[in-house]
């Protein structure tokens, strides 16, 4: 038996009997027994679960998020490859990497849903699905199917030192303010063009026309001289902010919490043009040989316990609405008591950018300038 290939193992007589028993047990035990039956069925899938995720979410620190999965599926422990961003994940997939699941963010849901690379989830197989924020859940849908399961989330807004900075108004204008030349930090993402669009008042910042995009780009290029640092990792931002190199930054809620912990006088400003909300989405790869294991993994991630761990340790929000972080500051910054926090009129939920390639090109040119 131990010599057999996975194929044989999956279909050996004992396995088949187990499958039948599990199925039968499921029918008898009812909905409560589904999870157990699922567990038994997913034992028919073999090998380690291949996960493509961001750094910090694997065995390099994120173990608590899927600890319950590992306990029940010790033979199918997750194996991680890391993605630096969605483009990188896309490239790796096209280059031949075969993960079972990965985690792009909400702005990419439509792209991947229509790419043929992913398949929809079956929420009935995810016990914790009912605890997930309905607005985020909706954002993970396309064509009526659930392509993305929301997990971590946060806001893009402005962080500034109240002892050094007096904003002229509650607006994105602050990260473009000439008065604070050399003290500003932007985020390394083409969403800067979106923000420029929001500030300049275009109709749809996520789908700007060529003319609008040109204007946004010219605007960013003109304001780039005020920028000291374009951050891509939070650690970088915290160092620079904490040491006083930066006074104003495009930032996430936890950045405010952390700077406050350092004793700095900081304000997390929600601009009048609205902050942007981002949400991570688990997606299931088309042709994965382990879909049930993937569902079990996501279920573990979606549990209240994992959600609370994420909030307490990484400072991101979690789609599980039951979970509450220990930090009241984080609670406030994430507006966790407001179930509509991520949607209009409170914030702009990040969304698909149809002309993403053009935005990407323009942003690269801003950086080169």
């Amino acid at each position, binding site marked *: 038996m131990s010599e057999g290939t996975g194929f044989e193992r999956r279909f050996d007589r004992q396995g088949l009997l187990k499958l039948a028993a599990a199925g039968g047990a499921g029918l008898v035990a009812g909905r409560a027994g589904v999870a157990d039956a699922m567990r038994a069925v997913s034992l028919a899938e073999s090998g380690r679960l291949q996960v493509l995720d961001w*750094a910090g979410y694997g065995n*390099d620190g994120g173990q608590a998020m899927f600890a319950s999965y590992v306990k029940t599926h010790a033979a199918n422990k997750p*194996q991680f490859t*890391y993605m630096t961003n969605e483009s990188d994940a896309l*490239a790796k997939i096209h*280059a031949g990497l075969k993960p079972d699941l990965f985690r792009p963010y909400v702005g990419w849901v439509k792209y991947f849903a229509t790419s043929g690379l992913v398949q929809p989830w079956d929420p009935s197989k995810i016990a914790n699905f009912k605890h997930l924020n309905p607005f985020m859940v909706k954002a993970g849908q396309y064509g009526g199917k659930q392509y993305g399961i929301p997990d971590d989330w946060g806001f893009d807004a402005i962080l500034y030192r109240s002892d050094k900075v007096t904003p002229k108004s509650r607006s994105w204008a602050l990260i473009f303010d000439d008065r604070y030349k050399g003290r500003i930090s932007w985020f390394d993402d083409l969403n800067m063009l979106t923000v420029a669009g929001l500030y300049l008042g275009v109709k749809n910042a996520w789908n700007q026309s060529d003319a609008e995009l040109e204007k946004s780009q010219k605007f960013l290029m003109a304001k780039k001289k005020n920028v000291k640092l374009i951050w891509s990792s*939070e*650690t*970088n931002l915290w*160092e620079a902010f904490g040491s006083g190199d930066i006074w104003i930054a495009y930032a996430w809620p936890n950045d405010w919490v952390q700077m406050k912990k350092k004793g700095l006088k900081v304000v997390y400003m929600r601009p009048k043009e609205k902050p942007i909300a981002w949400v991570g989405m688990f997606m299931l790869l088309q042709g994965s040989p382990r879909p049930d294991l993937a569902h079990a993994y996501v279920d573990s991630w979606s549990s209240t316990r994992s959600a609370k761990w994420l909030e307490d340790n990484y400072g991101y929000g979690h789609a599980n609405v039951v979970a509450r972080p220990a930090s009241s500051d984080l609670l406030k910054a994430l507006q966790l008591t407001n179930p509509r926090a991520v949607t209009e009129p409170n914030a702009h939920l990040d969304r698909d950018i149809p002309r993403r390639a053009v935005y990407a090109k323009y942003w690269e040119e801003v950086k080169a300038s």
Partner: protein
Amino acid sequence: MNDVALSKNGARVLRGFFALVVVFLYAPIVILLIFSFNNSDIPAFPLSGFTLHWYHQFLVNADLRASLETSALIAVMTSIGAVVLGVLSSIALVRRKFRGKAAASALLLSPLVIPYVVFGISLLLLFHTIGVPRGMFTVVIGHIVITLPYTILVLVPRLEQIDESLEEAAYDLGASRFRTFRSITLPLILPAVLSAFLIAFTTSFDEYAVASFVVGSRSTFPIYLYSALRFPSQLPQVIAVAVVVLIVSLTVVVAAELGRRIAERRVGAA
């Protein structure tokens, strides 16, 4: 003899300059050392108190240790490969006559040029096309390409300085090409070979970009570091590791150097 190249005053001035540069080189490392004991998540002044916590954390961090082992193994294999190829190349460049030497040396040095991230991606594509699974050996392959120019750049000047007539004499006495190499050339270029080995080793051990693309799901030390730089909770213990790596490698290199000099003295070396 000592006075021929430098007067006593000249030597004094240069010695002072040398000392200054050494201080400049080591100051940041001393700072790392200080912060490895600093009781704070973020390395910034003012200091927050003494702690051994980070050293303890690093010792129980299995992932970190695994990445160190992976890197060390890869570096050793890379260095051996790069030095062997480097010696072959250097001898051919310096001693042999053949057409297209300029082109050959351009080719051999060209990996210096390519941005490692591009090389990493293209290597990934190559391995995908020919169906090679990614792992430690694919990293070794990439690293040998990267470190080969360095070994050549160290070996060629040394080979140039060696008198060809010594080797010719050996041939005249009937020694085979290999024997000549082993008994005459190799001992004379040994310091350069060791330098080449060290350079290849440190380059490979430290290399991030290429490794990140072709290592598959394992982690090398720089990859672990780079991702740790994104998560402040990891940073202090990683600083502690860096201090340990420095001390260990310094010890190893010094011991190797002393060992080499003892061996040289025994052989009655030049």
